[in-house]
């Protein structure tokens, strides 16, 4: 398969892994954070930890939009879903995320009209097909998905569609990275920069990480070879005492980003003064709301929103895992009360969440290794 197999070529992968071992040496420990949940998923899916030397530690970052969404927002969205004639539309990733009264899927089983859509424009299509109903799109995601939500609202406005709204949970990546770096218990050497987000925002917004924080960052693709090459680039910078923004994912990410997408976002959204992130707390100017010109499509203005705030279960240590302070299996609930079938924290729900990735691909492997090392 073109554009995939080239980046999974065993011989090249082995050679790159060899280069990583050579550069990493044995003297020091390297802590690198992959910001994006897609990278976390890829690391586990391709078993990359098996081929990296032990002194390279990958810390899973906050870049999984489902994972950072506070439970109260899900409750708010599902409260609107119970209004008469409302169709609740969301990406498949959202369907099993628990609210206090159950997940969207559990609401569907109870008769609430919950639909999976693959894009916001599919939700708009639903609105056109169901003129007697109101379709509310539960929007999540970083700058990756925000432009398509914006374009859909622009389309809805142009077509004069009145039975469509968006419950906006879009967040922005840079403030989250800043919050991580500001966290006192965080020690990081370098960042593997998000790939998909950067197709929209480009590489410039990361420059402060290199200049002010003196941490190298390499924007990376998602195939095994992409990620290994990014680690090589980071190691070379670290060895040379440099801190720069580099773009490994040039085949997709333009340095300046996607101007058309940024323009669409600017037309429809404005920054919220602050927004709550699950595990990270309130972060100022870290999320988007729908601006006044598009107020008619803003579900938070059209409907009574309860504004529910839910504190995470005390025993769950999602925040520490999200910041990379704890590994998923070090959480007290991991694999016991909290599993992919019965997730307590959102990190266990999304396939991009580090707990689910670790549970699905790794934890029995870890158990096996520890058993064999005892024997």
């Amino acid at each position, binding site marked *: 398969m073109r554009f995939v197999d080239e980046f999974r070529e065993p011989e090249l992968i082995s050679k790159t892994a060899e280069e990583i071992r050579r550069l990493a040496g044995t003297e020091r420990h390297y802590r690198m954070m992959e910001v994006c949940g897609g990278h976390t998923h890829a690391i586990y899916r391709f078993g990359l930890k098996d081929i990296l030397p032990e002194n390279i530690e990958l810390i899973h970052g906050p870049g999984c939009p489902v994972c950072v969404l506070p439970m109260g927002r899900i409750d708010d969205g599902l409260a609107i879903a119970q209004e008469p004639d409302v169709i609740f539309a969301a990406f498949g990733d959202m369907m099993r995320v628990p609210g206090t009264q159950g997940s969207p899927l559990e609401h569907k*089983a109870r008769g609430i009209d919950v639909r999976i859509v693959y894009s916001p424009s599919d939700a708009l299509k639903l609105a056109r097909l169901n003129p007697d109903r109101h379709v509310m799109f539960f929007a999540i995601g970083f700058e990756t998905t925000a432009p398509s939500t914006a374009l859909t609202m622009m389309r809805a406005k142009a077509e004069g569609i009145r039975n469509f709204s968006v419950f906006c949970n879009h967040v922005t990546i840079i403030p989250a990275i800043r919050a991580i770096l500001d966290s006192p218990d965080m020690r990081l050497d370098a960042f593997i920069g998000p790939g998909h987000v950067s197709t929209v925002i480009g590489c410039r917004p990361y420059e402060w990480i290199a200049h002010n924080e003196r941490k190298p960052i390499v924007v990376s693709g998602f195939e095994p070879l992409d990620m290994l090459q990014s680690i090589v680039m980071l190691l070379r910078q670290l060895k040379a005492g440099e801190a720069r923004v580099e773009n490994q994912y040039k085949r997709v990410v333009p340095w300046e980003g996607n101007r058309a997408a940024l323009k669409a976002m600017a037309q429809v959204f404005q920054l919220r003064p602050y927004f709550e992130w699950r595990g990270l707390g309130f972060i100022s100017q870290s999320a988007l709301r729908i601006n006044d010109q598009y107020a008619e499509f803003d579900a938070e203005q059209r409907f009574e929103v309860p504004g529910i705030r839910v504190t995470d279960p005390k025993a769950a240590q999602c925040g520490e895992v999200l910041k990379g302070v704890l590994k998923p299996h070090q959480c007290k609930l991991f694999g016991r009360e909290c599993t992919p079938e019965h997730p307590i924290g959102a990190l266990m729900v999304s396939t991009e969440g580090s707990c689910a990735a670790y549970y699905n691909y790794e934890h029995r492997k870890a158990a096996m290794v520890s058993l064999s090392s005892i024997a």
Partner: protein
Amino acid sequence: MLAESALTRFRDPQIEMAHGAGGKASRKLVEGLFAPLLFGAAPGPLGDAAQVDINGTKVAITTDSFVVKPLTFPGGSIGELAVNGTVNDLAVSGAKAEALVVTYVLEAGLSTPVLEAEVRAMAKAARDAGVRIAAGDTKVVEHGKADQMYVTTTGIGRLLPGVTIDPRSVRIGDRILLSGPIGDHGITILLARGELDLEADLRSDTRSVLPLVEALIRAAGPGIRWMRDPTRGGVATSLNELARDCGLGMVLFEDQIPVRDTVRGACELLGLDPLHIANEGQFLAVVSSEYADAAINALSLAPGGSEAQVIGEVREQPAGTVLVTTLYGGSRIVDMLVGDPLPRIC
């Protein structure tokens, strides 16, 4: 004696779509509620068909319901699935389907030509598979209380000589065989729904696997330990069940697993794993290592078996688990399907 309620372990408050998806939730429902109340406390490993002793003659029996949406799709339709699905459940249990009983649940308002086309499809599939449709029943429910039509087939089969299927007979060093490319059915259905604006030249793999199973038994009968058709939940779920039942590790070689490029492409785009996607015309077999070559040769020469492959082997570790290894030395655990990526595929 324990009260019956003490035997049930199913604690989910309501039935969700995932309970019908063939993965973990389905298994919990069967093992936690159905099996303890219907079969007694410890039914042992649950196969695709049961064996019943009638006056000293053993026969295999199984049943399957079909609720696929849409009713027709490239490569097949609900009628064909309903025949092949039950024929295949018997085949991988080491039995040749002799007779089927059919139940239709029809929604008032279903057009007669649609029904007739499906009945014709069933008749043809039954002829092709060499099985007789012996009896049937029809129920009609109000418009809106079912989705066009549902079909249930119950099959009774004669045990094929020369083979015993038992997950507990699987040994370290056995080879894991797959009859051909995976994921065609599930992805075809997903695309046929037309919700994705994706198109691909792909057909469901629905067919009777009996001829391939018979070829395998002729060539490697004494070496066959276990067979299963990986329908809902895919290869990953079937092998996880085996791993659990035999307590050994199933190690797969990713580069040996046949997957068409269209299926791989769709899975890449949608974030799905082909190992979790349903199949309707493939089967898995575990064969002792000394019979593996003969088994693959026989399958490759049989019609429709040219893409059969050894995809992995049974090892002591990781016990009770399926591990996929890559050519470059990475590995990952593949669990049963959790949740329900593709509702109502069969």
